[in-house]
């Protein structure tokens, strides 16, 4: 999936999930068939234990489903072996975890650059600088994570997720434990930045405050819900 997506690529769903099932011992989480197109912004919502994080892990290739199929940008994740899957994830999927989890020993710039290095992409200082500038972090590039405010660290995590121009940006509970203002700011950031890079956004949360900001919603319960109407 090239960063400059052509028309053909635009026709391919970014996420194509079919008959997904994840077993945990005797328990099983079943997910509906689901498609996400380029630039779409989806909210995956449901109570704790409904399978939101599991779904994101399946989409990111961090888990192999017990049954069913996930394709990202037309690439069946099951067809990729371990290292190839890791590289694919690094190049095409951005992930913003609940906590920023920046590498403490690296500067902010190095943290963002790390995403390119681990994805096997060539160094691109200009791209790193541009992403940091876009997120208002240009002046903090040489600071270490412990020198950043929580908001700055969260923006750095977004910068790291976007630096490789992913087709799909996944965010897992990014607004948990944030006050209303910070919650709104984080949402603005994710929606705007994903849009600016042309990435599809899938945000999983149990936080009801964010519902209104998304037109596409996938509600999960104890059992997977039916896909939303188009």
């Amino acid at each position, binding site marked *: 999936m090239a960063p400059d997506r052509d028309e053909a690529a635009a026709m391919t769903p970014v996420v194509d999930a079919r008959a997904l099932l994840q077993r945990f011992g005797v328990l099983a989480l079943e997910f509906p068939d689901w498609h996400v197109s380029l630039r779409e912004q989806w909210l995956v919502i449901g109570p704790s234990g409904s399978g*939101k994080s599991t779904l994101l892990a399946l989409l*990111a290739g961090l888990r192999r489903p017990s049954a069913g199929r996930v394709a990202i940008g037309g690439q069946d994740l099951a067809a990729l072996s371990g290292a190839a899957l*890791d590289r694919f994830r690094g190049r095409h999927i951005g992930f913003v975890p*609940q906590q920023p*989890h920046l590498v403490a020993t690296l500067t902010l710039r190095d943290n963002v650059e790390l995403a*390119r290095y*681990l994805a096997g992409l060539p160094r691109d200082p200009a791209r790193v600088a541009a992403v940091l500038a876009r997120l208002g972090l240009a002046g903090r590039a040489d600071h270490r994570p412990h020198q950043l405010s929580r908001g700055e660290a969260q923006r750095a995590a977004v910068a790291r997720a976007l630096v490789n121009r992913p087709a799909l940006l996944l965010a897992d509970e990014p607004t948990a434990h944030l006050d209303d203002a910070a919650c709104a700011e984080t949402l603005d950031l994710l929606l705007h930045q994903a849009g600016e890079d042309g990435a599809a956004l899938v945000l999983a949360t149990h936080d009801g405050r964010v519902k209104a900001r998304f037109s596409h919603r996938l509600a999960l319960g104890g059992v997977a819900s039916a896909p939303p109407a188009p």
Partner: protein
Amino acid sequence: MNLLRLTTRELRANPLGSGLAVLLLALGIATLTVLLLFVGQLEDRFGRDARGIDLVVGAKGSPMQIILSGIYHLDVPTGNIPLAEVRRLQALPQVRRAMPLALGDSFGGFRIVGAPPEYVAHYEGRPSAGRLPGAPMEAVLGAEVAARTGMKPGDAFAGAHGLAEGGPGHDEAPYQVVGVLAPGGTVLDRLILTPVDSVWRVHEGHGAAPTAGTPGAGAHAAVRDGHDGHDGPQGADAVADVAGREVTVVLLQYASPLAAVSLPRMINQATALQAASPAFETARLLRLVGVGRDVLHAFAGMLVAGAAAALGVALLSALRGRRYDIAVMRLLGASRAKIFTVTLLEALLLATAGALLGLALGHGLVEVLGGWLAREHQPAVTGLRLLPGEGWLLVLAWAIGLVAAGLPAWSAARTDVAVLLSGGNS
């Protein structure tokens, strides 16, 4: 950003654990380095000093003492032997060459050895300044003697009775320094060599020939028994003719290997002399030294095993603290193999640091020890020498690093990213 940079950053984040592992490994490697350098150089030196000498004959006593005093000039001689006996030995068909040595005096703690010219030639000694002695009372200094005493050709000195410093002087019969030998890494380096006649002449001046003076009791016994007379129990002083003159030991070379079968037995059984085989006695000595070496090896082994455990614990502890970093790295595209490699690389870097520090420590320690031994007029060892075996110490350190990192690396590579980053959410 690259793997090495990433790894060194991670190591610097845990200086205490990393430092302890490096220190323990360094101590183990340093101990092994000291053993390797010290024992290696000592064995090498012993081998070089005894090379080409098949048998040492001296007065009855301990064979090892004869070897230590006659070849390595470390111990006191067992006594003197008549020169006439030496002449008889030289005439035997089993003997190709016999080099009589006369000991008894010293200067500044360095032994004055009366020796024939072929003794210097045997060790391939050549003057770096001046020449070899050509007449009685001329002396050539070993390189170490010259360096320590500051004497040079043209200087004169008087020997002291006995083989240790502080004996009564022979001021009436000074030696003339005519040359200094180039360093050869042999026993010559720490000897003062003069014709055998010189030693006799010094003692004839006293009306006597040398005793096999001991550094302690022997020399003092000679003094106690009347230094002027030199008729102490350590060996009566020789007189000026062959019939009455004495030397301390004679170094023999066999005419043929068959001589090894008959000659020692013949000497030990049919004469009042004692024959000792350098090969046998040196091997016995090294076996005795070997017990201590084995103990030190075991000690070093324990240190190294402790270092491996400390390294493993340090890595595990560091990785536990970095589990989110590892999860993020996996999320960003790092394969399990890359995570495994980063952890192994950390261990290898620590092992390399420990090995290099240990080698430096070991060499430094041997150099200090060598300086002390030189001051004690013992065979010198140096830390400023690299042995091929030291490469294996580096390999050993890497092997330890890899073994110690195995479990932490496997554990890091198996990190469940999804569980860790979701913080328990499903």
